[in-house]
């Protein structure tokens, strides 16, 4: 009887500790405001856009507003620069919002793998990242990737491709 009471107390304490831990480390509730940082641009020129150089180039013909845009640079902060630097020519690194479990991973993997030209899909749940390796040296367009992620029920936050060397 005593040991049962003791066990119940230990379990209760453990649960309380877990609740405290989770309360401290839990991410805040989702904001209703869209996350703008590193959003995929609908335009067809996403490659190497993280480089300040690249950002400066098209600015001559564009409005100054474009040059001010800090979003791409901010996106780098949320990503692992090493991972981006080590991308192969046929690889893309995506950041996807809303992934929380193995079932999310399954849906995204299934729909991305079904795309023509995709060789493999690797997902890091904790980082919220998806590494896509295309067949040959081809690359999938942002729109294609965004469509597949949306059909899986998630939101594509940003796309990184290997920097031009």
């Amino acid at each position, binding site marked *: 009887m005593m040991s049962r009471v003791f066990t119940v107390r230990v379990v209760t304490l453990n*649960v309380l500790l*877990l*609740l405290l*831990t*989770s309360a401290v*480390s*839990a*991410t*805040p*509730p*989702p*904001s*209703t405001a869209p*996350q703008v940082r590193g959003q995929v641009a609908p335009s067809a020129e996403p490659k190497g856009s993280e480089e300040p150089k690249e950002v400066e180039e098209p600015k001559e013909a564009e409005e100054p507003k474009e040059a001010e845009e800090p979003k791409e640079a901010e996106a780098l902060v*949320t990503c692992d620069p090493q991972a981006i630097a080590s991308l192969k020519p046929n690889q893309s690194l995506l*950041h996807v*919002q*809303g*992934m*929380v*479990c*193995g*079932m*999310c*991973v*399954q*849906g*995204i993997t*299934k*729909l991305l793998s079904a795309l023509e030209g995709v060789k493999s899909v690797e*997902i*890091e*749940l*904790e980082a*919220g990242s998806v590494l896509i390796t295309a067949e040959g040296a081809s690359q999938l367009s942002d729109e294609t990737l965004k469509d597949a992620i*949306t*059909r*899986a*029920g*998630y*939101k594509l*936050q940003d796309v990184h491709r290997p920097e031009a060397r």
Partner: protein
Amino acid sequence: MINLGVKLLMRHAERPPYLIATVLLFATLTSLILRPATGLGHPVTFEGGVAVSMMSQPGVRLWHTNYSLTSSVALGADYMELDGEEPSAIGLGRLSVLLKRWMGRGSQGNLYLLTGVGAAEWGGADLGLAWMGGVQADYETQRVYTALIGRVLGDQSPSTDTLAYHALYRFGVAPYIAKTNELQAWLVGQVSYHRGMEGLPSPTLLMRVFHRSALWELGADLKGRPWLQLMAHF
């Protein structure tokens, strides 16, 4: 359904063990019908996704399947069997709609509309029309999980005409964060409220285990009745 429950109670009133068993079974029955058959998982998955689940408690078995037409609409079916002197069964066609999804990096909040229509045959009574409507809101990160559900069930047959309400709240925590394809465990507690049957359902504590796209839940309520659930997405 509650009327039927009362009838069954009266029928077995002279036999206390059956009385208790009947009350417990009806509490469970109401809970099962009114809560999502996918065990408070996602009623809608991904475009082309198929979800299958099975839940078992003493005297009750429930099967559910759904197919997501898009990432926000799913069609499905429920079938449940209830043991007893006169076994009962219910079948529902289901339509679930994801009304809104809020997404952050590593977090997800959802609002679903749940509907269903079908037939029920309770304890030898005539086959009747059964319908269900409800709302589910949930929020999940890799560390915490919470869900709130409100539902209403109607059932009509020549001998019954019932409207029942149910609310259920669930909260879970993950003791650790697993990497992709690793085993993820959760501790989950749930509390439910049934209008007209207050006090009968008791809180249930569960251990939930996730691996890839499969989920197991094992636990018991405070009365010691075990709970087992399996779910998988394809």
